[in-house]
């Protein structure tokens, strides 16, 4: 097994006609690291992946695999592995032939190919499926064949284009763990493109959140989740309640006093930006980090609805100052008084202060 190589993108940009799909972007993926490109459709994540793969030529910038500038190299010379969204297994070949294809392209000896294919089948737990036609496989099995096919050639870097999108929920969750395990075991550098934040959080060492052709934040999953730097990121990575307010004071550089609209309470919050007194801010709060007080202590709110979601209860409440309803997740059901008025509380350590974005 060869050592995994780092991947470096330098000032990659791409436009299609008048649309700037990617603004100049620079990125580095360490050897053995799994980086997730996360974002909504149209954010440029697939464009980036296709440039790395070689199917698309960037307008500016370079792609480096290890120390080599591969930008001018066609895809079949880049020695990459790729799993496509719908697996793209060759319909006229069976499982073993699909997996063997990459090795045949390297003109490997037949006997050697047989050994490597068997090894791969063992790794993805499909030993008995070598002769099966791919049409007889379930979605999960096809996905594993696609993975085996991409890894059998010992690629330096593995590219994954929404690999789990076609699977149903429970299968997706188990495959997330399995894929990650295989990637870690092989120590292969990998990039996964996904619009599913849970997938990115589960599988990656770092997440690059993308929007409209730019990377808006990059960091470890827990950092992105707990310390989003913009409303977009915080909303994309899970439900976020956004409560507007005004900065009243600034006792320390890391702290700000904020009064939330609709409440007379003044709250001291962690501030990681230099906010001026009088500026309008949004406080982002995760539903699972808030609580409801039946006696009304805290931010005034009116109960709207509650649903049971299996592992928790989700409460929908109206809070003055917030246009959208506020959500709170609890483990146990709350006693709501007959007039529906309750109080909301949260731990300021788990709140994020964001500047109100220009409309």
């Amino acid at each position, binding site marked *: 097994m060869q050592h995994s190589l780092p991947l470096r993108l330098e*000032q990659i940009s791409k436009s299609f006609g008048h649309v700037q799909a990617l*603004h*100049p972007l620079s990125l580095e993926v360490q050897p053995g690291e799994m980086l997730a490109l996360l974002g909504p459709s149209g954010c440029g994540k697939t464009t980036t992946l296709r440039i790395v793969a070689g199917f698309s*030529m960037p307008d500016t910038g370079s792609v480096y695999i290890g120390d080599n500038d591969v930008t001018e190299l066609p895809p079949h010379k880049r020695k990459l592995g790729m799993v496509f969204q719908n697996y793209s297994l060759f319909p006229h070949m069976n499982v073993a032939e699909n997996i063997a294809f990459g090795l045949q392209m390297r003109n490997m000896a037949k006997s050697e190919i047989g050994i490597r294919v068997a090894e791969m089948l063992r790794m993805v737990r499909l030993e008995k499926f070598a002769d099966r036609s791919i049409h007889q496989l379930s979605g999960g099995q096809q996905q594993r064949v696609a993975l085996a096919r991409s890894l059998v050639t010992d690629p330096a870097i593995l590219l994954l284009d929404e690999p789990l999108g076609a699977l149903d929920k429970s299968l997706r969750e188990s495959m997330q763990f399995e894929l990650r395990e295989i990637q870690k075991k092989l120590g292969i550098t990998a990039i996964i493109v996904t619009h599913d934040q849970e997938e990115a959080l589960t599988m990656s060492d770092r997440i690059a959140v993308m929007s409209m052709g730019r990377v808006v934040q990059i960091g470890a999953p827990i950092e992105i989740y707990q310390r989003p730097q913009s409303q977009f990121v915080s909303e994309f990575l899970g439900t976020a309640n956004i409560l507007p307010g005004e900065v009243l004071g600034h006792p320390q550089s890391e702290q700000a006093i904020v009064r939330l609209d609709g409440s007379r309470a003044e709250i001291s919050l962690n501030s990681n930006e230099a906010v001026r007194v009088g500026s309008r801010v949004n406080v982002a709060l995760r539903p699972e980090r808030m609580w409801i007080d039946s006696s009304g202590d805290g931010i005034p709110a009116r109960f709207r609805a509650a649903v049971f979601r299996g592992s928790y209860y989700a409460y929908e409440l109206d809070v003055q100052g917030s246009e959208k309803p506020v959500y709170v997740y609890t483990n146990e059901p709350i006693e709501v008084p007959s007039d529906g008025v309750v109080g909301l509380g949260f731990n300021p350590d788990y709140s994020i202060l964001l500047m109100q974005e220009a409309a």
Partner: protein
Amino acid sequence: MTAAVTELPRRRARRNYAALALGLYVLAFMTFLLLPIAVVVIVSFSSASFIAFPMPGVSLQWYSRVFEYAPFMQSLKVSIQIAVSSALCGAILGVPAALWAARSPGVAANIVSNFLLAPLSVPAIVLGFSLLYLLAAISMGVSFLSLLITHTVVAIPYIARTVLAVYRAVPPDFEEAAAALGANPWRTFWRVTLPTIRPGIFAGATFAVLISLDNLPLSFFFGSSETNTLPVVMLSYMQNQFDPSIAAISTIQMLIALVALLIINALYGIEKLTA
């Protein structure tokens, strides 16, 4: 951290020489396809009295000759009549049959749908020959009706083919939704099914008309002064006199077909069915 796009050195797009070569080949191919047709149209305006190059001048003399030459006009009329009426008969017979065969699950339906398409596989000259003798045996001989029957046999598969394809592509949910909304079977058929497959019917019918207009092998056996179709007359003219009249009448026929195609496409949108 990132520079503006305009400040960075731009890469030249990777030249795809293979695609370029292929494109040139396709261009040559299209020229090959259209060249003989273009040449004929041009020659039809020749002012020479025989086929000569380079053309001495432009004139409409051959068009007026065509209009004067009775067999051309008479056979053109017959051709159009036969084409349209055979397509009509083909539709009346073929559409219901195709509709049943398209969705019915049994083996019988499968056999029938192949049977409906079978005349396409038989060489027209064999069909024409055989039909002539059969019709003669039941003393129908050479007549407009015989010609009509012959062309209808060929029209049915063209119509059945497109209707089968279109109807099979329509999700059964359409009709079930109509039924759920209270439509009885007849209304469902008229208001839901028929409009959906209409482009298919007209595409097939148009094809049948075009083929019928050009069908010499079939019509050839039924030749008489009242029942000669245009291709038959054109062939004998070409073998006896070789002048640009052929070019003129061909151009007229092409224009009629083109106009008919454009009108039907505008009305019924058959463009989407290219197979």
